[in-house]
């Protein structure tokens, strides 16, 4: 985020990171199910300083019609960042990065959603990043799962997502923006905890085969933490088990 001190300490001698977290500690996560009046399902997530809103519509008619499939429903995902969500204004038109993220999130959700129950229809997932601070795709995917569940769309599992990475030669959970810029590797993971399947996986940065293994492990554990919060968000809305 512009003007960061190049000599910033990413990990101090006590194993504390630049934002005060331990190596296996995620940022503060708050997920809320619902919130939008017009959407069939919605969710809002705050993941550290990320603020992301997701609205789900459908199953509904497919426009344009030629996109519809007679065997199954289709999932469409748009991941979009607001111009004011990052330090330098972002051009509002969808960038190549956003198009790629839309695609990987779509493919991460597809194994979870029982689209075959709704042939000839579409489920649209609209993700709006209001504020971005590293790890938006994971936060967005986690919120999208909750929004799909909130829309009452049958699912095999929810997809929980969290990134792991390598910072100051150490494998850490949930890489923030500063760590992503200055760190050595970033591995976003989307995981279905009940089915034990990884549905989103990317990596940039160099990892030895051992670090690679560790990174997957740490990330999957992070996903399990997020999963509990996703369930809590749905519980809070539908069963009123507000615990805080």
């Amino acid at each position, binding site marked *: 985020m512009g003007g960061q001190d190049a000599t910033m300490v990413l990990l101090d001698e006590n194993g504390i990171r630049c934002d005060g977290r331990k190596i296996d500690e995620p940022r503060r996560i708050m997920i809320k199910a619902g919130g939008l009046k017009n959407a069939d399902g919605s969710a809002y997530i705050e993941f550290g300083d990320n603020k992301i809103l997701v609205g789900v519509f459908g199953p509904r008619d497919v426009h344009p019609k030629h996109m519809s499939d007679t065997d199954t429903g289709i999932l469409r995902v748009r991941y979009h960042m607001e111009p004011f969500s990052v330090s330098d204004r972002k051009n509002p038109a969808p960038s190549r990065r956003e198009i790629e993220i839309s695609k990987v999130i779509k493919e991460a959700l597809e194994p979870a959603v029982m689209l075959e129950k709704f042939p000839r229809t579409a489920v649209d997932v609209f993700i709006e990043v209001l504020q971005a601070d590293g790890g938006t795709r994971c936060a967005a995917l986690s919120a999208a799962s909750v929004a799909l569940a909130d829309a009452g769309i049958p699912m095999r599992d929810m997809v929980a997502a969290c990134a792991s990475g390598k910072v100051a030669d150490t494998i850490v959970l949930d890489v923030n923006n500063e760590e992503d810029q200055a760190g050595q590797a970033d591995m976003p993971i989307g995981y279905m905890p009940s089915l034990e*399947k990884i549905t989103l996986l990317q990596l940039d940065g160099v990892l030895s085969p051992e670090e690679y293994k560790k990174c997957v492990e740490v990330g999957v554990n992070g996903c399990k933490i997020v999963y509990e919060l996703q369930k809590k968000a749905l519980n809070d809305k539908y069963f009123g088990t507000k615990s805080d």
Partner: protein
Amino acid sequence: MASRTVIGELKKIQILELLEQGKRIDGRALDEPREISIEINAIPKANGSARIFLGDTEVVCGVKIQPDRPFPDMGDKGIFICTAELLPLSHPTVETGPPQPHVIELARVTDRGIRESHMVDVSQLVIEKDKSVVGVFADIVVIDYDGNLFDACSYAATAALLTSKTPKWTMVDDKVTRVDEDETPLPTTTIPVSVTMGKIGNHIIVDPNGDEWASMDARITITSDSDGNICALQKGGTDGFTQDEIIQCGELSVRIGAKIREKLKESQQESQ
């Protein structure tokens, strides 16, 4: 590329049945990539180029090297950009117009694999700090399609970069000036190799061909460098992988990648 047809559905059943017996539709072993043929310097007007056949998939990469302005926050580094495009003559389903999401993904994954390996040593590509740097553009076009464009594009770009020659520039009176006719090899630090694996049912196959690509439930592309480290990864497709499968794919990519790296090195040496 995956328009569903009756023949496609039948092929998928056949591919899966064969895999249950440990066989592939084209007779390869599950961890066996297709034959790779590399023609270096296919486009002599480029600073480096390669024409690659991965089975029947054919791609061409041309590298252009020219002075450029540095990115504002990277005044002490040259520029490396890799693009990929599907030409309309490569497959009946390819249309002209703005790139489809799968093509954008192809270009970005190919770029990421090479970029994250730090293959091109951009620190050596500075003409004058903050003012002028050398830009290296590896543009890839797909000529003919038979599955697994990720690896074909990656090998084409890597082979072209390994054999690229860069002119020399210097600043004279605040103007970028070509020094002499001499050209030196592009500074590179490692040879990244991407290996794409498809998942059909519970079977993992290396380098899926066109029919296998259309039948895949999920795929994963893993790039490793000369030290055997993993430097980039992209999962795709509509199914998931178990944690064990992800680890297995990591090992596969490093092992298969090492063999392909030898092939790339050979073509580099032959071109000298």
